């Protein structure tokens, strides 16, 4: 089987965790990848500055959707400060697959959306731009 589309990725894509919306979310943010039109929205519910619940919504490829599913799993129970420290490598390790420059943008879109939401800014710079 194709290593990029191994079971784990496909499973998260076809049966995403934390998919949906939180109507009374404390943090909501949406962004898209203009190259492919992928769109991700993330809603976060906080309790004492700790993520109590998180949901994501949107359309996209297997990589971006699996990344959102896996990343949101990791966010639950984390503080905002901890989330601010998450980086590109954290997401790539979660996915555990080799990605080319175009697909890295798909993989990192959910993190970009989360960080922009948590920092409360309009657009979070692309992770790879910081290198």
């Amino acid at each position: 089987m194709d290593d990029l589309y191994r079971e784990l990725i496909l499973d998260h894509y076809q049966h995403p965790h934390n998919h949906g919306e939180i109507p009374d979310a404390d943090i909501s943010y949406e962004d898209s990848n203009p190259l492919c039109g992928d769109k991700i929205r993330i809603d976060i519910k906080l309790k004492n500055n700790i993520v109590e619940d998180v949901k994501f919504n949107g359309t996209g490829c297997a990589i971006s959707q699996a990344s959102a599913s896996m990343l949101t799993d990791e966010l639950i129970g984390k503080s905002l400060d901890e989330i601010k420290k998450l980086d590109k490598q954290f997401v790539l390790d979660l996915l555990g697959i080799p990605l080319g420059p175009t697909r890295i943008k798909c993989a990192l879109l959910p993190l970009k959306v989360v960080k922009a939401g948590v920092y409360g800014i309009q657009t979070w710079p692309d992770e790879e731009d910081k290198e």
Partner: protein
Amino acid sequence: MNSINVAAIREDFPILQQMVNGKPLVYLDNAATSQKPEAVIRVLDEYYRKYNANIHRGVYHLAEEATTRYEGARKKIQKFINAKSFREVIYTRNATEALNLVAYSWGRANIREGDEIVATVLEHHANLVPWQVLAKEKNAKLKFIGADDQGLLRVEEIETLITEKTKLVAVTMASNVAGTITPIQRIIDRAHAVGAVCVVDAAQAVPHMPVDVQALDSDFLAFSGHKMLGPFVGILHGKRALLEKMEPFLGGGDMIREVHLEYSTWNELPWKFEAGTPAIAEAIGLGAAVDYLTALGMDNVRAHERDLAAYALGKMRDVAGVQILGPLNPDQRGGVIAFSIPEAHPHDIAQIFDREGICVRGGHHCAMPLHEYYGIAATTRASFYVYNVPEEVDKLVETLAKVRKIFKS
């Protein structure tokens, strides 16, 4: 099938001789850019090795050689699209710049508040955004001819939307997503009947079928060299009477007759619209591409692509779950086939194709409004050219089945 010898053609394209991911390269992204034959690559190489010089000014041998070839290529292009004069053929950076030239130069001078600009829902962003910018600046109104579920323009709207209020009609000759070949003659004739000017985006037409600007009577027609076996340079054809009256698009060297500190006068056509040093080698290379296509014959090119599209449409329809965008009748479309598979995202499809050495494009193909119109986020697109063969279509179809297998829920 027709009089094109594809086996011989393939020999002319060095890039097609390679393996990708251990498989022979299958290049099916020709709507984005085409590959280049040896004859074009050689001309580029020769320019830099033998007569690299700036054009139009130097009196030394190299400059004269470069100028002669640059202007010689223009005449080849003129003949290729049957323009009345070489003065009507303007080199631009790409088709996008050619369309912007019309929007900025002709549009700014002629579009007024309340005027209507009519386009279609099939347009590439290049033939849409410049008109949005113009309409916003002038407070003009944009209207769009719709399409049916097969991507065919609603012809009855040609008469109802193009009216006395219409000053400009901007329309694609062949869609880069749905593949639709539009009823361009009917649209141009209607535009002229109401006194409007018609701008044709022929980026997906000139490389793939015979285009005769005098027969069409198009006012402006834009296309890209790199989509027709040539290097990265664009062409704007405009009717001389219109171009003569237009102000320059970009100012600078070469586009002037006289420059004084306070004012300047303009060079004659076509150079009035070619400010600064142009893409000299690329223009000469496009001349070589035009020679290559002319030798093949554009009727033969069209017949070859029509046959390939017919073969592909037939085969792809047999793969369960594959939805094809655009007309199912190969006579109504070019060699562009965009499709979707409900359970797999185009990016993933394109990636799996890449593993098989097949280049296809996943995304919105610079036609977001068209995807919106059909309620789909993105599609995967395969597009053919002179060097593609039915065996490559077979590989495309086999890989489609593979995608379905990987993504079966």
